[in-house]
């Protein structure tokens, strides 16, 4: 298994390399460059001055040279300098990434804890009133855009009920205790998990309904196994396999999907950083973010494979 993981890890290197090449090229081909900010801020600036500064920063080099210069920096652990924030990227990213991972991690946990039991319950009580009701809630969750549901949650819990702060990060109130800090997490986690809970619940329900129609479930019943054993050990376990794939592949999308949630709830995560870096042609910052996203996708794919091996003994990592 270790050899398999190592092999798969090594296979991610060309994938991530390819992703960075594509992203770097696309960013270079997009209109504008980092010098636009200079041009906008100084009405006296001459084209010659812009060209000279472009040369100082190496922006006049061919794309491939700029790319390999960036790659060589990254290989040395230097993600570069953000022209937007005038700071080394390594001083910005870790804090933002940690905030985003905290938000997405908690929403992932909440989604799993809610979606799987409810999906199972819905499957067990197929076509019951509860099943219809839960399906309705799921469709509502899938249909509501985050920027809208986010504002609704703020209005309800902050303005009307006054229970939660209307956005922000607990670091703005130093010295808060556990519950004081937790209050800042509640609304964004709820909103972020709403969509994934709804969709995973539907997947869980469908997957379980498909599994329980399999012949081996019939066999298990025929041999007289207890209902709980059939559901938990045979049906649920097999039904979880596609769900694990789904969850593993959704996690990077969840981080990307946190952009809107973070903006609505003023959460200092990666979301706003992506937006700002792209809007302001901050190449190195954008590249660092996409590099991390690429690595996360590769990592979670790997985790999904590991999870398969645990869930399905027919899959062997040899």
């Amino acid at each position, binding site marked *: 298994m270790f050899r398999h993981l190592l092999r798969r890890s090594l296979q991610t290197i060309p994938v991530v390399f390819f992703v960075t090449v594509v992203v770097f090229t696309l960013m270079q081909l997009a*209109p*504008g460059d980092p010098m636009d900010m200079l041009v906008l801020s100084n009405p006296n600036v*001459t084209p010659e001055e812009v060209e000279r500064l472009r040369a100082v920063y190496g922006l006049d080099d061919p794309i491939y040279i700029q790319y390999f210069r960036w790659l060589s920096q990254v290989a040395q652990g230097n993600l570069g300098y953000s022209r937007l924030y005038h700071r080394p990227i390594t001083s910005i990213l870790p804090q933002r990434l940690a905030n985003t991972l905290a938000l997405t991690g908690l929403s992932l946990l909440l989604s799993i804890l809610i979606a799987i039991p409810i999906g199972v319950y819905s499957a067990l009580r197929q076509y019951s009133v509860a099943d219809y009701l839960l399906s309705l809630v799921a469709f509502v969750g899938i249909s509501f855009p985050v920027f809208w549901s986010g504002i609704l949650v703020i209005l309800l819990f902050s303005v009307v009920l006054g229970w939660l702060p209307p*956005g922000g*990060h607990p*670091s703005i109130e130093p010295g*808060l205790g556990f519950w004081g800090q937790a209050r800042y997490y509640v609304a964004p986690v709820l909103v972020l998990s709403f969509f994934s809970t709804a969709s995973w619940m539907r997947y869980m329900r469908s997957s379980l309904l498909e599994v329980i129609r399999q012949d081996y479930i019939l066999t298990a019943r025929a041999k007289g196994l207890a209902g709980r054993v059939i559901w938990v050990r045979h049906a649920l376990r097999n039904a979880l396999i596609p769900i694990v794939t789904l969850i593993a592949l959704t996690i990077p999308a969840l981080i990307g999907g946190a952009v809107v949630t973070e903006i609505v709830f*003023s959460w200092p995560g990666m979301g706003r*950083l992506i937006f700002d870096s792209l809007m302001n042609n901050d190449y190195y910052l954008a590249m660092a973010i996409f590099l991390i996203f690429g690595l996360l996708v590769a990592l979670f794919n790997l985790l999904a494979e590991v999870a398969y091996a645990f869930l399905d003994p027919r899959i062997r990592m040899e």
Partner: protein
Amino acid sequence: MEAANIPPRARVGQDERQGLKMSTALLVFRFSLLAAFVCVAAPGCGGQADLPVPEPGKTLVIGVSQEPDALFGIVGNLMVSGDVGSFIWRPLLLIDSRRRPYCVLCTELPTLENGLWKVDYEKGVMDATFHLRRGLEWADGTEITARDAAFAWELMSDGQYPHGASYMEPIGGVQALDSHTIRVSYKTLWPFGNADLRLRLIPESYYRPIWEQYRSEGGAYWDRFLADERVSVYPKANGPFQVREWVSGSHILLVRNPAYNLGPPPNLERILVRVIPDLNALAIAVSTRQVHLTDGWLTLEQARELEESPGIEIRYVDSAWLEHATLQIKHPPFDDLRVRRALLLAIDRAGINHAIFRGKQPPAHSWVHPGHPAHNPRLFRYGYDPGQAQRLLEQAGWSREGDGPLRNARGEPMRLTLITIAGDRTRLQVVSVLQALWQELGIQVEIRPESARMLFPDTLQRQNLQPGGVAVWRWVIQPEATVSAHGLWLPRGTNLDQLTEGSPWDAVQENKDLIRQALGTIDDEERYGLLRRQQEIWVRELPTLPLYWHVRVVSMDRRLTGYVPYPDQYLGWGVENWRLEAATSMSPRSVRSGVVRSGVVPGADWDRRPERRVLRADWDRRPSGRRSPDQQNTNTTTDDHQTLPQTLNLPHQPDPCSDTC
């Protein structure tokens, strides 16, 4: 179903064992996540600073929608950087509430009369001398000297200065004549020699070693110098506050600078600048009084909603932000003056102001704001006259049959594309009205929203505005209100028709002469006269279509007193006089979180509170004279403006994102 899917009986036992393993693994997994949650939410686990809980009444919360890019006094691309920086830095000069320059670090403004401003008309050069006040200190306790001004000049005239060495044009040098005397030399005559807000001081004793270290390493040394936390994040400055904590994307906490001795210490102990990117979330934070002050972020629509909120005061402040339509005037159909005039006559700008802006954003008639002393009140004003517009188009060779499209002699229809910033709801409303009004004349009009990222660098600067394209955007007019043949804020390299040689605007020889004369005329009144004449040419030639003047929306918690917003002023210049009343009637929890239940907001009986009277009294002292309470929420009228500041401040650029991002 396939038989292969049936697990062999022999493997049931193995399944059960692995099922148990799986359950254990799931249990461990869930427990780990739960532990992660506890860790994240627990105090101390997230790396929080060990700071006391902000004391009500001593910590002011300011809401901004963008994060500053840097807080080093001489660098910053965003207006928010200037706003936050104004709490931290005090420059040589500032402008007062009536927009006149006054000395902050100096003892006396240079004038021709007192001999500190010397002009050599023959050589076309000049210099201004400033004497620094003695005994002033930087935050590290070292004295502020003339060498600090010379050092700031050294940084700003460096070839790698982030805003370009040309930013300080036409200054030729800044010298320290002695420990407290600065001489600023100008390469050409420059009418703002005693009001040049670009002049800054940087503590040389603290920053020189850092600067020299990076400079000696070569390469992009200015970038690396700026990337040093001591420079752009925690600057050593001379303002009433200094940065205590900057959490990227969340907030900046400012605390009192103990070495501040320029004036009285501020009443406030801390200022928390909260970054709230979403404007709806910002409005909610204002309405729940979690944010005490916003300036220039909220929209008119949000302001209208907040006017109803008890405990919140909304003010509308005039700004020299001109909404206008850029055209390619060297290309058909806009190369014909009659067409440009017809398009403007066909816009009901007063109706737009009434219907969309509730009368807050009046039509513009030139690039000079009516509050500016150089404004020409006798300018021709293009009213709404679709009949006249139709006649002008017919004279220009554009006619229509019945309700058909407007066509020229070759039978080609007039097709225009209205381009504006995507996501800006107000602008989309305005361009929709423009579309409808122009379509009534038979013009085919398409609306194309573009992101700010595309509109400014690509469409406008790199001349990708196609003939027939009409770009509607905001133009920040600098306080000196002068223009050049090359452009207003747009740089020399810009290739817009209206700003290039040979355009109808550039081709008027008198206009060229006026531009040259205005920049070389020291006397204010004489220069304003030249600018008034130039406006007549503008109105005649219409190089762009002026639409309306923006206002800045300011929201203030009524517990805050002392803040009086004025045009062209950065937020923190008068912070020493601000005072925040503690919210004694709020519950402890509400005080801590800032959350107040709707309907039970303390201060709902605000009209009886003394602060209201203070604010009104303050307002009444403004030059416009008395204002009734009902006028509180109307614009500061043009009568309010006596003089405008005469030069630039921190890098002050049109902010393409502030309305939309």
